[in-house]
């Protein structure tokens, strides 16, 4: 568990805003604004935050579904952000993605078999008969009946569709998978099935995950380390136990205290940190620390200086002037 598979350095993704009759650029949405982290081989890193904090953009930029504005994405020593043409195409099979909405990410006019075989046709050189065998193996691996290969996505339930999406992601035997809210659209009783499947596959195939989610209790279950994002920046990054037991960043503290706990006696006596207001616009983020407008500990220094990430011990890296 000491080999670094993915190293992201100062990754930045800005989207231009165009306005006026000449569509001149009038500003930028700073969706991801200089984030850095490493993922070890076989590890699961959680990426959490509220909607609009840039966690999905970060995941997509790492896979080069978006071109990074700045920064480096070192995947197994190779800078993905600098690749182009054939080199990029050859790197793609090793990095795959599982999407949030299993309804939207499967083509309704293709059979499940051809959906799963598509990456094999694009990137592999298997013969048709071998592809069919491979598809059946993949369906079996994700817990679906291999005879379902000729059916269409609408014949499956949400949880089963998510399994199809997982089978497709596994088709090219990747090392690294970005799971973008893979369970958010599923019912509670189905979520556990899919999470268990992801964990089993990780163990069996030695996969490395970037698990993007807003479900903090599920992230606690599945992730080894967790990064908390707010307005395009990483506020805190720590091993699971440290982050959940002793959160140091005021934003992490507020986020954790907002999660409802399914125990009435705890809920009745719980002290919540209620954040007032909404997340500011990423087109015009606050100066200094981006969280300061909603932070109870904010002082003058927070407005003038961007807090540098500091290691507060045990690998708990916090970007806050006031964290101890």
């Amino acid at each position, binding site marked *: 568990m000491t080999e670094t598979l993915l190293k992201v350095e100062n990754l930045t993704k800005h989207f231009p805003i165009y306005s006026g009759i000449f569509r001149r650029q009038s500003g930028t949405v700073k969706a991801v604004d200089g984030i850095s982290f490493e993922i070890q081989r076989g590890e699961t890193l959680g990426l959490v935050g*509220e*909607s609009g904090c840039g966690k999905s953009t970060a995941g997509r930029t790492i896979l080069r579904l978006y071109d990074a504005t700045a920064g480096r994405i070192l995947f197994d020593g190779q800078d993905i952000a600098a690749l182009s043409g054939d080199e990029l195409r050859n790197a793609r099979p090793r990095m795959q993605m599982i999407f949030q909405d299993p309804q939207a990410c499967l083509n309704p006019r293709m059979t499940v078999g051809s959906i799963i075989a598509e990456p094999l046709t694009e990137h592999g050189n298997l013969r048709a008969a071998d592809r069919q065998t491979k598809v059946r193996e993949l369906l079996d691996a994700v817990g679906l009946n291999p005879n379902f290969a000729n059916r269409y996505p609408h014949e499956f*339930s949400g*949880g*089963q569709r998510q399994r199809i999406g997982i089978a497709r992601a596994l088709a090219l035997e990747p090392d690294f998978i970005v799971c973008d809210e893979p369970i958010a659209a599923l*019912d*509670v*009783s*189905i*979520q*556990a*099935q899919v*999470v*268990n499947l992801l*964990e089993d596959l990780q163990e069996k195939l030695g996969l490395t995950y970037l698990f993007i989610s*807003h479900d*903090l*209790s*599920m992230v*606690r*279950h599945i992730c080894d380390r967790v990064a908390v994002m707010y307005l395009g920046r990483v506020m805190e990054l720590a091993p*699971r136990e440290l982050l*959940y037991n002793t959160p140091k960043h005021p934003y992490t503290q*507020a*986020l*954790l*205290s*907002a*999660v*409802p*706990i*399914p*125990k*009435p*006696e*705890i*809920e*009745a*006596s*719980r002290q*919540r940190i*209620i*954040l*007032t207001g*909404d997340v500011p616009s990423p087109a015009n983020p606050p100066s200094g620390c981006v969280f300061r407008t909603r932070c109870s500990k904010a002082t003058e220094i927070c407005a003038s200086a961007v807090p540098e990430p500091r290691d507060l011990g045990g690998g708990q890296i916090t970007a806050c002037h006031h964290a101890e």
Partner: protein
Amino acid sequence: MWGRMSLDSIGSDPVLAVEDLRTVFHTGEGTVHAVNGVSFSVREGELLGVVGESGSGKSVTMMSLMKLLPMPPGEIVSGSVRFDGRDLTKIPDKELRDIRGGQIGFVFQDPMTSLNPVFNVGFQIMEPLRIHLGLSKREARDRAVELLELVGIPDARKRLSDYPHQFSGGMRQRVMIAIALACDPKVLIADEPTTALDVTIQAQILELIKKLRQELGMAIIWITHDLGVVAGIADRVLVMYGGQIVEHAPVSELYANPQHPYTRALLETLPSMDEDRTERLASISGQPPSLTKPLTSCPFAPRCAHAMAGCLVENPALVSVGENHDVACLWDPATGGVR
């Protein structure tokens, strides 16, 4: 216990009582039995949580109460809904229209689709006030400002002329709550009102609801799939599965002593925030029932770890297992045998 009403302030008479409600949908592929004999009541000042997965019939039940379903394909086959001395399933549509949005308020899951994008929010809050209460434009405007202030929208008078897209998700849901509260309803039905919101915004809305309950004392029916949310706000909880109520208990009793295998499994599948992490999540295998046939056996039996021969030949009725605690199951967790 901050936020929870003392039991004295909860009235003893039900404001709304539903008896044996059955709703079906006639579709091209046959009849879907969405609600199969649901009975419950809610009292003044009480917050009733309704928990279930998608397709469990929780939303259709509430829509049926107010006949908000498209009919056809929907049809209310049987049942009664007592409200204010009347049976809502029998009264003419005109009377029902006076009750909807007036004495019974609704908050829906997605505030973007339930607010009209081409009218400003002031118009949308004033609309029920003018229609149901007959207020003049000026009175309605003043009341709308009060309502927006009540739900915590800053600079209320100025924001009346803003359109829904100018509000954030949490603020839009506050506007929805303001509209639902406009005519001082006796019952507020909230259908997954915080599901589309972030946790920090959800926490704001939950605090708001706790505050409003104490100030206004109306009955609230809160539909959700989130057992954590229910634990924090509900007095009593109904657990629905397969279009029927499978368990009903006061909130602390339900979490401390769940009886139905479905309730127990749901609580076990949740990853914990405060205890040691388990290596593997408990999961419920299989899929929810399709409800295309009338239920002749327990709908949960195919997924149930404790299913017995009897579960496949009869659909168990709700039986009392304690004070205010009912469960529809043959299995007894205390003995591990037949109840």
